[in-house]
Structures are given as structure tokens and as C-alpha cells.
């Protein structure tokens, strides 16, 4: 059957090559529509409760995606006429930022003060040419004690100042809008640096984070995939010692990746930092199929079979294994659809699609290519003799192998619970990324980047001017300011206190909350009417004036610490503000803090389903339930061991961790399937004894397993050089899992097989003994 098919392929090889090339070009044309996602929201599904809470908050107040520009003069503080002049100009220029709706800085802070019954609301820094040294001192003193400025727009030591731009992207083409904003702000920063070389200029904020996501995807795409291709080319040439074999595999890889990436474009799936590994992962999977086919092919040719016949032999020998391997791999990747984070679903789907494409290329194009190119391969690694020796070693020491592995698994498994989930999203980017450096600088010198937001309101719908409400909010704010994790708390209560003082002729004894609801409401009305465009309080108070927003800025702390802090805040509110209605914390920081946990919870069902499907597949391939189930063992323990080692050595793990198990399971099983099909062939077709069958399996495909696993390990190890931590972590975890998986297939699978066979034999023997006894 298969030989008839390969005979047909060999005859039609040129037509097939042209047809496939045409199809790939058509699919590849979709690359023109390829997009890179940048919005941090991509990591969260639409029904994520934290995302819903954040969006409700943003609809009630305003969306506050932002750019934060941070200026540090080389010497002295920021309260010099020169620096303030620069600050004023910069504030003005920042108003020109595309999609900006608000610019807050030290200079345009709305400073309210009173002289008797005259209340003035004006920019904190007015016409600088008119300012005397005394004025500058007064401004500095005021700014450094104003709770809404210090640790937010100016550092307590007066050496660093910030400019916060709120950006409201219309979202028609959000990714290009992000690029537009970033380009404008970067240009502004460059101009400043050129004009004032002594000035240190940094840019951070959520818009820059979005940009960093997109830029890191593009960088990974540009560097990782070509690096991978190069490494594979060298490795193949080294292992196969065949120029044309290398060309075959490279051609297969290139066509598979072009078709897959093109189809991704056609389907409108945008690449994101977490789905960008798909093409690179695919390369390694193509290699697996191709190398199995090529090694069998060269083996036949070297044994003296004519090349066209050898192609048939190779396909016949590997067809079943390739079908099942590709099937389990697809299952593993499709499992990622149960992930909470859409980018991981994309990663799974793109790769799964690629594997299907690869499968067809392997059984249609590869035989054609093998017929076209000369069969010049002489695989160098591991002679049959070498594999036989290795097989003997494993067979002789099988008890030690079993016991040793069992002990190792149990010992390492204890390390799993040492892992704590952490998604500190700034640290997704390594220090080679400008966003990371500027954000770290900002956290160290001016203000935090992590934030928790609260929308506080009373459960009876009272307006915020209610004195009881304001008092409780103020107590909450004061409590938060005492927490060590906190750099700044932004709340309207500080404005009410200042207004109360203003309304009493600026007598500082009145710097406290107004006594009655009427006073609060009327003071606020006066103040709001005197504010300029963009600097209003609509981002602090809802339209009903029944809820107010409190923003807590945090130091750079781990996700776990953020969750702890929020839990403490909830406990405080429960005791001290029982009459408050909606008060759960929200914001990007909490979204990421919850995502690891949610991802794991969402992946568990998917993972179980994948395990069941893969077990059934193994049972079907092996036609044996015991064998099928026991074969799962060498594929499950690598994850256990690696997460244990990770817990002991690293201890922190991000959202990528949850998908790693599913992803590796589907691929790991491949080696097992290849090994077991050879083993069963030896047992059933050739009638060999178990020990001899193990030896046969090793000598037949030990080489191919070794080469494909090595390339697989290289392929995933390459993600360790990504500047994006989720990919780095995924790369390291998968690399380790594949390495342990290879070891388990070599030293654990054969002992398990022999153990089962021994058990079956003794069971048979004992039943015979029993029969005799009767």
C-alpha cells in the first residue's frame, strides 16, 4: 500500500514540488496581513473578573493609559528657573501628544490659595520671569508638603520630577495608535536630550509597556527564528553528515513556517509576545518528522537498497509513528486553548495548525524531495554497536535505573511547593529593554509603577460629600500611607482638606475635612468651576458624586506581596468601613497578580483531558492498556522533576508555567511512541524476546531519537536568549523537561517494559502451576 503510494510520489516528484510550492506561496501571502498585538489587556480573557472590574472602574471615571516622562537635572534640584522653564515648555509640548487628554506636572498643578474671602486657583508655577528667589522657595516648600505632588510628580529630595500624560486611544487601530504616541514622546525626549545634554530623560507608563510588548515580539521574531534555523542547519549537517539531507530539512522547515505564519495572517490572528515562539517551536517539530524519515532512508540506502525502494521503506517504517506523534503533539498544543490567557491559546492554535501542515509536508513533499536530491547521508552518531552496548547497560542495571529514578522523582517532587507564582510584569522585560531600565529608574527615584485602584462608595447611595464617608475614606488613605509597600496614595480627601483651609482664609488650623456635607459639596463646586481643561476631577469622582477613586501606588513588589497587601486592605475596610458598598481593589497590577493562579486553574482541566486522550492514543498504538498507561510514566515525571528543581533553585514562576506541562506532554510522548512501535514490531513481527526487542529498538531509532531530542532541546533553549521573561522561563522549563524526558525514555522506559513483561510471565507461570496443582 505505502510502497504503491511512495512509488506514485516518486514518479510525480516534480509536479508535487511545484504544487506544494504554489500552495505555500498562496498561504504565505497572508504574511502581508500579519499584526503584532501590543495592548497588555491581551493577556486577559474577556470574562476575566479582574478585567471586568477594571473596565467598570475606567468607564465610571476615565481610562488611564499613560505616559510618564521623568526628568532629572545633573545637579541641584528641579526648583531652578532654568529647569522650571524647561518643565513648562515640556508640559505644553506634551499636550500635543496624540490622543492625550490630560497632562499633570509640577508646574501646572492647580494650586488653590486664599487671601481673606478671595480664593485663587492657578498653576503652581506661573510666569517664571516674574518669580523672585523667595517665590521659588515658597513654591518648593509648598510642593514638597503637598500630598498630591510629592512621590508622584516630584521626589521628596526635589531632584526628580515627573510628567504624567493620560492617553485615550480611540481603539480604531489601537496598535498603530500606540506606536504614534510612543514615536511622539520618544522624539520629544530625544530633542530634550539633544538640547540639554545634562538632563536625564526617562519614559515609562502603560503605553510604553504596550510598546515594549510589541517590540519584544518583533525582536524575537527577527532574531530567534533565524538563529534557530542556523543552529539546526549546523546540527543537521553534523549529525546526518549529509548536505542534501540538511537542504531537505531546511526546505521543509522554511515551507512549513511560511505556510503557518501566512495562514496566521489570513486567519487574522495577531502575534503577541507569548505566541511569537510558535514558528520557532514549529521548526523543531518539522525536524523530528524529517530526521526520522531521513535516518531510516539513509539506513536502507547504506544497506544497499535502491533509493526509490528505500523511500518506500522509510515511509512504511515511520508512517504509524509519525501519525500518532503528530496527533499527540496537536492534542498537547490544542490543550492550550483552555488557558485563561488568549496569547497562549494563539500559541497553541498556531503551532497545532503548523503541525498539521508539517504532517502533510512530511508524507507528501519529503518523499518527493528524497527522490530529487542525492542520498548522500552517512549518519555519524552512535553506531549500532554503541546502541547495543547502551541497551545492554540499561537491561543489566534495570533495577538500579528504576529505583534511582523513583528516588529522584520523590526527592525532587518536594521542591514543587517551593514555587511561588509571580507575574511582576515590569520584570517580564530584561534590563536590555529600555522600558525596563526607565521603569526601574522611576521606581527607585520618583514613584512606583504598580498600582491598586479603589472605587469607594457608601452602600446607601449617599453622596461623597457625606462627612462620615469622607472621614472613613481619609482613615483608609492614612492607613494605606502607613503600609511599607506604598509610595503614594491619591485621594480627593486631600483636596477637601486644602479647600476647607482656603475657605477659612488659608488658616492652617482648618486643614481638615469640612464638617458638613453642604460645605464639602459647595467647596468642591467652587473648585471644580475654577479648574482648566483636562485638569478636572472627573477621574476621581463619578458623575453622581456618590463614589470616589483612591489610587495607591506601590514600590516594586512581587505579585504575592500585592495580593497580601490588598487582602489586608480588604480586612481593614471590613472592620472600619462596614457601610461601604463596592470596594474591591482593581488595576493592571492586580490583573497580573491573579493571572498565574487563574491560568493554572484553567489549564488543569485541559491538561487532564490531554492526558486522557494521549493515554488512549498510546493504548490504541500499543493495543495494550497496561503498556499504554505505564508508558505515560516517563512522560509525566519530567515535569514533576523539573518543577521540583525549579522550586529549589529559582522559586518564582510566572504565567507561562501553566502551559509548559501541556505543551511538553504532547511532544515528549513522541519519543515514547517511536520507541514503543519499534519494540512492538520486534516482539510481534520478529518474535524477539523482550531484552532483544529493547536492543532492536535502540539500534533502530536510538540515533533518530537522540538527534531529534537534541535539536528539540536546542530549539527551546533558544528562548532563553529572548528579552521577554515569559519566553525565557518557558524556554528554560521546556528545555529541562525535554532533557529529563529523553533520559527517562532511555533509562526508565525499557526497565518498565521489562518489568511488565516479567510480571506477565510470572503471572502466566503461576497460573500454570495452579492448574497443575488442581
Amino acid at each position: 500500500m505505502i510502497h504503491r503510494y511512495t512509488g506514485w510520489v516518486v514518479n510525480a516528484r516534480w509536479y508535487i514540488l511545484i504544487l506544494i510550492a504554489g500552495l505555500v506561496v498562496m498561504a504565505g501571502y497572508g504574511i502581508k496581513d500579519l499584526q503584532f498585538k501590543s495592548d497588555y489587556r491581551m493577556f486577559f480573557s474577556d470574562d476575566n473578573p479582574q478585567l471586568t472590574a477594571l473596565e467598570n472602574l475606567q468607564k465610571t471615571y476615565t481610562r488611564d493609559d499613560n505616559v510618564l516622562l521623568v526628568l532629572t537635572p545633573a545637579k541641584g534640584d528641579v526648583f531652578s528657573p532654568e529647569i522650571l522653564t524647561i518643565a513648562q515648555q515640556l508640559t505644553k509640548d506634551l499636550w500635543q501628544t496624540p490622543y492625550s487628554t490630560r497632562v499633570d506636572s509640577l508646574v501646572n498643578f492647580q494650586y488653590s490659595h486664599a487671601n481673606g474671602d478671595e480664593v485663587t486657583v492657578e498653576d503652581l508655577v506661573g510666569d517664571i520671569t516674574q518669580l523672585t528667589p523667595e517665590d521659588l522657595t515658597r513654591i518648593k516648600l509648598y510642593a514638597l508638603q503637598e500630598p498630591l505632588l510629592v512621590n508622584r510628580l516630584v521626589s521628596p529630595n526635589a531632584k526628580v520630577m515627573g510628567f504624567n500624560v493620560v492617553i485615550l486611544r480611540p481603539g480604531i487601530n489601537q496598535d498603530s495608535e500606540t506606536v504614534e504616541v510612543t514615536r511622539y514622546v520618544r522624539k520629544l525626549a530625544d530633542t530634550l536630550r539633544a538640547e540639554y545634554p545634562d538632563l536625564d530623560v526617562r519614559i515609562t507608563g502603560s503605553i510604553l509597556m504596550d510598546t515594549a510588548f510589541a517590540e519584544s515580539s518583533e525582536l524575537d521574531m527577527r532574531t530567534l527564528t533565524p538563529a534557530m534555523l542556523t543552529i539546526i542547519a549546523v546540527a543537521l549537517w553534523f549529525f546526518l553528515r549529509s548536505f542534501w539531507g540538511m537542504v531537505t530539512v531546511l526546505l521543509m522547515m522554511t515551507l512549513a513556517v511560511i505556510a503557518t505564519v501566512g495562514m496566521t495572517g489570513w486567519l487574522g490572528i495577531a502575534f503577541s509576545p507569548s505566541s511569537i515562539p510558535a514558528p520557532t517551536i514549529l521548526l523543531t517539530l518539522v525536524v523530528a518528522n524529517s530526521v526520522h524519515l531521513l535516518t531510516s532512508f539513509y539506513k536502507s540506502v547504506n544497506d544497499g537498497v535502491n533509493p526509490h525502494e528505500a523511500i518506500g521503506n522509510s515511509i512504511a517504517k515511520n508512517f504509524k509513528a509519525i501519525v500518532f506523534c503528530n496527533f499527540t503533539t496537536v492534542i498537547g498544543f490544542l490543550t492550550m486553548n483552555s488557558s485563561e490567557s488568549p496569547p497562549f491559546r494563539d500559541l497553541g492554535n498556531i503551532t497545532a495548525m503548523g503541525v498539521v501542515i508539517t504532517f502533510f509536508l512530511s508524507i507528501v513533499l519529503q518523499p518527493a524531495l528524497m527522490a530529487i536530491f542525492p542520498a548522500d547521508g552517512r549518519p555519524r552518531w552512535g553506531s549500532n554497536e554503541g546502541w547495543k552496548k547502551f541497551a545492554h547497560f540499561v537491561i543489566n542495571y534495570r533495577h538500579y535505573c528504576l529505583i534511582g529514578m523513583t528516588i529522584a522523582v520523590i526527592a525532587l517532587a518536594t521542591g514543587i511547593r517551593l514555587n511561588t507564582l509571580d507575574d511582576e510584569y515590569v520584570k517580564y522585560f530584561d534590563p536590555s529593554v529600555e522600558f525596563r531600565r526607565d521603569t526601574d529608574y522611576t521606581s527607585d527615584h520618583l514613584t512606583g509603577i504598580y498600582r491598586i485602584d479603589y472605587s469607594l462608595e457608601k452602600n446607601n447611595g449617599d453622596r461623597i460629600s457625606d462627612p462620615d464617608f469622607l472621614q472613613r475614606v481619609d482613615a483608609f488613605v492614612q492607613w494605606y500611607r502607613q503600609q511599607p509597600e506604598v509610595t503614594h496614595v491619591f485621594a480627593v480627601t486631600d483636596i477637601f482638606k486644602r479647600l476647607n483651609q482656603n475657605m477659612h482664609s488659608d488658616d492652617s488650623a482648618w486643614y481638615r475635612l469640612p464638617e458638613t456635607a453642604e460645605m464639602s459639596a459647595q467647596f468642591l463646586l467652587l473648585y471644580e468651576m475654577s479648574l482648566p481643561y483636562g485638569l478636572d476631577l472627573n477621574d476621581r469622582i463619578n458623575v453622581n458624586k456618590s463614589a470616589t477613586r483612591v489610587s495607591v501606588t506601590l514600590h516594586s513588589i512581587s505579585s504575592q506581596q500585592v495580593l497580601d497587601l490588598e487582602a489586608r486592605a480588604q480586612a481593614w475596610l471590613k472592620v472600619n468601613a462596614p457601610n461601604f458598598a463596592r470596594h474591591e481593589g482593581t488595576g493592571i497590577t492586580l490583573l497580573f497578580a491573579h493571572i498565574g493562579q487563574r491560568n493554572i486553574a484553567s489549564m488543569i482541566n485541559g491538561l487532564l483531558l490531554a492526558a486522557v486522550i494521549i493515554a488512549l492514543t498510546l493504548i490504541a498504538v500499543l493495543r495494550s492498556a497496561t503498556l499504554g498507561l505505564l508508558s505515560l510514566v516517563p512522560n509525566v515525571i519530567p515535569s514533576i522533576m523539573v518543577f521540583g528543581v525549579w522550586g529549589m533553585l529559582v522559586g518564582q514562576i510566572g504565567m507561562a508555567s501553566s502551559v509548559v506541562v501541556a505543551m511538553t506532554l504532547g511532544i515528549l510522548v513522541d519519543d515514547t511512541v517511536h520507541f514503543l512501535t519499534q519494540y512492538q514490531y520486534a516482539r510481534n513481527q520478529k518474535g524477539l524476546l523482550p531484552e532483544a526487542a529493547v536492543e532492536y529498538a535502540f539500534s533502530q531509532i536510538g540515533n533518530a531519537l537522540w538527534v531529534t531530542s537534541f535539536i528539540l532541546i536546542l530549539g527551546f533553549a533558544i528562548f532563553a536568549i529572548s528579552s521577554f521573561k515569559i519566553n525565557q522561563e518557558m524556554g528554560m522549563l521546556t528545555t529541562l523537561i525535554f532533557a529529563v524526558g529523553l533520559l527517562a525514555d532511555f533509562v526508565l522506559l525499557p526497565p518498565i517494559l521489562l518489568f511488565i513483561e516479567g510480571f506477565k510471565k510470572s503471572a502466566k507461570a503461576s497460573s500454570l502451576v495452579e492448574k497443575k496443582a488442581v
Partner: protein
Amino acid sequence: MKLKSLICGVLLMAAFPALAQTDEEKGYAIQAEANRRDNGYIDSMHDAVMTLKNAQGEVSTREFVVKTLEVADDGDKEMGIFHSPADVKGTAVLTFSHGTKPDDQWIYLPSLKRVKRVATVNKSGPFVGSEFAFEDISSWELDKYRYRYLRDEEIDGNDCFVVENYPVYEYSGYTKQIEWLDKKMYQPRKIEFYDRKGALLKTLTFSDYNQYLDRYWRAGKLQMDNVQNGKSTELLRKNYRFKNNFSDRDFTENALKNVR
């Protein structure tokens, strides 16, 4: 020959003065006519209901009464008295608006029983948290803007002049407005507001026009939509009353304390 064509040209220009007008002059002329038609009403008074809506769909209302006294050659005198929400009831704002200078403004705070003079150059912030800025609803003066005529356009079946208004006031929140001015009433049908970076910020639509004293048109409904943040505010102006015999004495700091 030359002389002849020159004479022809001059005659032509005299016959069609519009041809000689620049767009700026034409814009100014249109708005000057609007100003002329609205002059002379002396005083007016109306009730106002403002309904604020955020992107979430939450709704909130504010009610106030507005009294206006016409002032020749300067901005009008205006007094707004809040009736709701309850916690600002009785709060009254007196404004002497000036075209291109900061307004004079006083606020009476019933909770303190005091009048506060407010010194600020800002008129561009949201009025009581709404999408209207104070500069959008305070009295319109011809010299507040420079003008440029753009085109004629029909809007909902009404023929309009389309004119660009450029704020003269340094602290205006806008770079420009585009106004659709009804050719029959010489009153706006629609105004688009452009922010500091020249992007469309808000659209104001006027409807439910009524004519008073056989001459003065007043819109009963003003709908302001913020296209950037999705919030909107509806302002209903009801019970227009003219000839109230208001005088300067009704628009003083002292008068503020006694309003109801």
C-alpha cells in the same frame, strides 16, 4: 484697453461685494449679523436641567436657574442659582464675563453664609462635572473669537453657514470650533470643539428652538457629546422669561446673598 478692463473690474466688484470679501471677513460679517440680531433683549431668565451620563451609563442631574442682564460693549452679567443636588442648593454664582480677559466671578456658599471672590483665568474646565465648560455656556461676545467662513451646508434640512471660530482668549481650552449657523435664525445648530492638539473633542447640538418677543431665538435643548471619553451631557433650558426689569443692583455681591 487697460483702462477699460480696470473700470469693468471696479464695476464688477461694486456690483458683487461678496467677491472681494475674504473668508475671514465673511465669517466675521455673518457672526456680526448674528450678534446684531440677538442684541437688545435687555434681560432674561430660564430654568436649566443638566443630565450627565458617563460611559458606564450612570446618570446624574443638576438643576439651576440662570438670570442674565445684557451689558452693552462688554460681556453680560449672569447669575446662576443651584436648586439641586440638595447639598449645593442655594449656592449662587455671579459672573461678569469679559470677552478676552478673565471674568469676574463671585460665589455665594450658603453653608458658610459667605461670598467668595474667585480669582482664576480658567474657564475651560468642566462645569459641575459635566461635559460643558464654563466657556461653552457663558455669554457669547463677538470679539471672543476670530472667524473664518468655510462653506454653506444643509444640516437636518436647515440651511447653514459653516464658520470656524478661533478663540482669542489665551486660556481657552480649544484651538478652534466649527459652527453650523442657521441662515434663518442666525443661531447655531451644531458646534464642534477641537482640543489643544487640534483633535475633535466634543460636539454640541442645539434643538427645540423657540422665538421670544418675536425676535430672539433660544434653544430648548443642548446636547454635548464628548467623542473622546464617551461621556455626554444634556442641558435643557426651560421657562424663558424676558423683560424681568433686572438692573445692575440685582447683579452684585450683596444681591448674591439674598437670592433664592
